[in-house]
């Protein structure tokens, strides 16, 4: 029997506000342990939370980017559970009245477009972190009180691929509106997966499990594959899937049920009496709406329509705010969108991947890439040298002209000099020359390659081609 996966996500994204959600402590990653803390986020007796207005604004922006309704009224609730990293032993979150609700995100995979429903987006505080060392457990509360949004989707996703595209789309949107860094490795984007399987064609959902501890995109996809396979196996064996929370073990590549104690929570939600409800007037909501930048989907359309890029290129460029911004800066200075796009899509992405550099830290200034394109266009260097120069620019941060100068990479246009080399090479390789003359025209590429090699790739390729052909045809 064929089975279909049914997947819903709970995505947590840390908001990049200046300060924490309920106190004035700095919201920054990587500070020394317990240095970004105060009596409020350490929950000392008598301390009270005060909601950071920027968090509300960022949450609303996220809601707008993901097509949500923004109600005029929402409020904060307490989610009660005890763990050392949660200093109040309750998390201030939102239960009944979230900041944003009923949205949707359009994603595009190989088999077409899919609309993924967003149930709700609410704001809440993050917990601290346990640090286990030499037999002791210590708590670092720096992260305690860092603002989060939790994005809850409808069970509308059907494959790991859809999940991937959905998460990329969400990440791109949150980046574009400047509300989150979305760095999975720093934990600023986290995701729990609710998954069930059902025989294809069946309307009714199967019993779902919730997967936790998914710390990377690859863990998410592996976990989805593993867990759907496990559920199918259970069903095929005539068993029933238990509704439970399972912990993903990335090393083992398996999911395990969480111990009863870990999951049997009754969170005893109730309205937080220390905080007042959030009232947003239509006017306030509109002010935020008016401040929204162009979102990835609109940008992509514009790149296709105005710049004539392919849908694929446009979607890759708009996958990250940083590549899109970079592209637009380049096009302003060097108005040949396709040439710019090619460099970014091929050479830049390759270098970013190879060096593991985040697109937010592209080391080549846009002006330098444009300079390089200009050098190629003007024939100062040829295009294959251009690619070498780009690699050097990426690694050293030097401007292209300097690299060309230092390495002597200027194109050789001296026809006489090239001619001499051509003659030498034909003379030194009588066999391929004979092959050519006896009709194997492909042998010409050998000579062109040898000439380019002899000139370290600097010879004007057009001249080389002409001369090689001329000499061989004689």
């Amino acid at each position, binding site marked *: 029997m064929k089975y279909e996966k049914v997947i819903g996500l709970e995505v947590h994204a840390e908001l990049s506000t200046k300060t924490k959600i309920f106190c004035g402590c700095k919201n920054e990653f990587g500070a020394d342990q317990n240095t970004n803390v105060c009596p409020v986020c350490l929950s000392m007796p*008598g301390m009270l939370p*005060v909601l950071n207005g920027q968090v509300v604004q960022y949450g609303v922006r996220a809601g707008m980017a993901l097509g949500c309704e923004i109600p005029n009224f929402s409020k904060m609730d307490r989610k*009660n559970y005890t763990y050392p990293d949660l200093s109040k032993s*309750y998390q201030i979150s939102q239960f009944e009245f979230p900041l944003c609700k009923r949205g949707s995100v359009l994603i595009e995979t190989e088999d077409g477009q899919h609309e993924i429903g967003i149930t709700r987006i609410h704001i809440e505080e993050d917990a601290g972190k346990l640090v286990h060392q030499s037999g002791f457990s210590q708590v670092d509360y720096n992260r305690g009180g860092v603002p989060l949004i939790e994005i809850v989707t409808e069970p509308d996703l059907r494959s790991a691929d859809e999940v991937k595209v959905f998460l990329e789309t969400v990440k791109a949107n949150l980046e574009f509106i400047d509300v989150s860094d979305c760095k999975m490795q720093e934990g600023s984007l986290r995701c729990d997966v609710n998954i069930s399987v059902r025989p294809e064609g069946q309307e009714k959902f199967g019993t779902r499990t919730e997967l936790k501890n998914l710390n990377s995109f690859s863990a998410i996809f592996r976990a989805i594959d593993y867990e759907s396979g496990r559920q199918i196996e259970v069903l095929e064996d005539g068993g029933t899937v238990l509704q439970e929370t399972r912990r993903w073990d990335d090393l083992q590549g398996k999911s395990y049920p969480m111990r009863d104690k870990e999951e049997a929570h*009754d969170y*005893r939600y109730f309205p937080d*009496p*220390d*905080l007042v409800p959030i009232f947003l007037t239509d006017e306030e909501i509109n002010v935020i709406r008016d401040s929204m930048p162009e979102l990835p989907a609109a940008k992509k359309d514009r790149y296709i329509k105005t710049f004539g890029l392919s849908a694929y290129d446009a979607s890759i460029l708009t996958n990250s705010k940083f590549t899109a911004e970079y592209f637009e800066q380049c096009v302003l200075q060097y108005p040949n969108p396709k040439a710019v796009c090619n460099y970014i899509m091929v050479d830049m992405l390759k270098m970013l991947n190879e060096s593991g550099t985040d697109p937010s830290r592209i080391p080549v200034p846009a002006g330098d890439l444009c300079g390089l394109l200009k050098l190629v266009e003007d024939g100062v260097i040829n295009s294959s040298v251009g690619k070498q120069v780009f690699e050097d620019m990426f690694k050293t941060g030097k401007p292209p002209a300097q690299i060309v100068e230092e390495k002597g990479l200027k194109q050789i246009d001296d026809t006489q000099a090239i001619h001499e080399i051509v003659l030498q090479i034909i003379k030194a390789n009588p066999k391929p020359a004979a092959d050519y003359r006896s009709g194997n025209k492909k042998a010409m590429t050998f000579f062109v390659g040898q000439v380019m090699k002899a000139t370290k790739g600097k010879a004007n390729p057009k001249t080389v081609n002409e001369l090689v052909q001329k000499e061989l045809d004689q």
Partner: protein
Amino acid sequence: MKLNELTITRARNLLEKKEITSLALTEDCLKRIEEAEPKIHALVTVAKDTALEQAAGIDKKRAAGEKTGRLAGIPTIIKDCICTRDVKSTASSKMLYNYVPIYDAHVIEKLKAQDYVLVAKANMDEFAMGSSTENSGFGVTKNPWDLERVPGGSSGGSAAAVAADEAIFALGSDTGGSVRQPAGFCGVVGVKPTYGTVSRYGLMAFASSLDQIGPITKSVEDAAIVMNTISGRDERDSTSAIMQYPDYEKDMKKDVRGMKVGVPREYLEQEMSSDVRNIFEESIRQFKDMGATVETTSLPTFDYALSAYYIISSAEVSSNLARFDGIRYGYRTKEYADLKEMYKKTRSEGFGDEVKRRIMLGNYVLSSGYYDAYYLKALKVRTLIKNDFEEQFKKFDFLLSPVTPTPAFKIGEKSTPMEMYVSDLFTVPVNIAGMSAISLPAGLSDEGLPINIQVITNAFCENTMFRAAYNFEQAAGFAAKPAL
């Protein structure tokens, strides 16, 4: 003259005229503390050295002709659940036996800005849960009028200390009557301001939606003076009212002729001692004599207030007190095998019985399956009670009631929690409705115990409350002091 017996008004007058010094005043209070404490145990920490230092400093300031604050050099006692920087603040719980805050509560900042002198921290029912101060983790406080009786609670230490003249005034906190009831048992003045009037920043939370800090003083005028100091908008408390705060002393001395007074019959229908009833009826006559019109009225939801109160306050307690986990500060059990055991032993050993009872009750009413039947219903009842009161204030300037059904009861007399809870019957509705009220002395029982009355006014109508109370105080002329 024993300076410690002075009111704020009188002491301030003498200090300003330089007839007395704050040092002398503070020394008298400290001397009185030494005498009285072995008998009443109203205090948990006496800040003797810093008090003398502060007093001397303010005297110097005054002598140098510098501007001094509204409470300059006035010795003050603070309930121990109000955080005082560098001075131990325990909420009378073993859980916080060693807790020294690194911050001042908003009210303390305000008092400091007016040059007050902190002489001591007052005993209380643990985390303000109780009506007798018998629930303190550090021993029972005794009523200065009769050492076999309780001073009331939870601000029993503050009220007993003021009644015994250990200081000029005190601060307490009132969640269901915790200022007004002990003020009644000790024959002093106690105010529960409208919710939102005094910042809760630095007040260790009992029930966040009900807690208010209020003054305990020797006169109505003193209470208004203290209110003028401690009230005001505080950005750090989101529930702090955003408004133009009134001058609480303004119009206080205007007469009450023509004012309309309501007496809810539900109060009178409760069981109460004949002393309380007689003195209350006497008070009604007093108001009539002063030219007010008094009418019987009705608060139909009165009977539900106590139940709603114990559900809402316990729910909030269960969550508010969850932070006392032995991880960051306060008490931690000595030996434990793992985290779970550490939590269990720390909280079992650190909290007293009443606190545990309320935490259990609160967790119960918030549990899935019970939330709607208890907590949600209580919230609805609360709205109805609030509406009831608001209706009354369309007709009346203020409501009048007794503060408690009986004068101070004996230590150990209330043997079940329910008996104890019922002693808050008359005060709780005011908190549930978010109104303001004052408890002030009206007379003595046959046994010579003080009996107070309660003036209840609409939210943010403290001016009317002070005016009614001031007029009554002047007419009643209550001047008795405990023969301690």
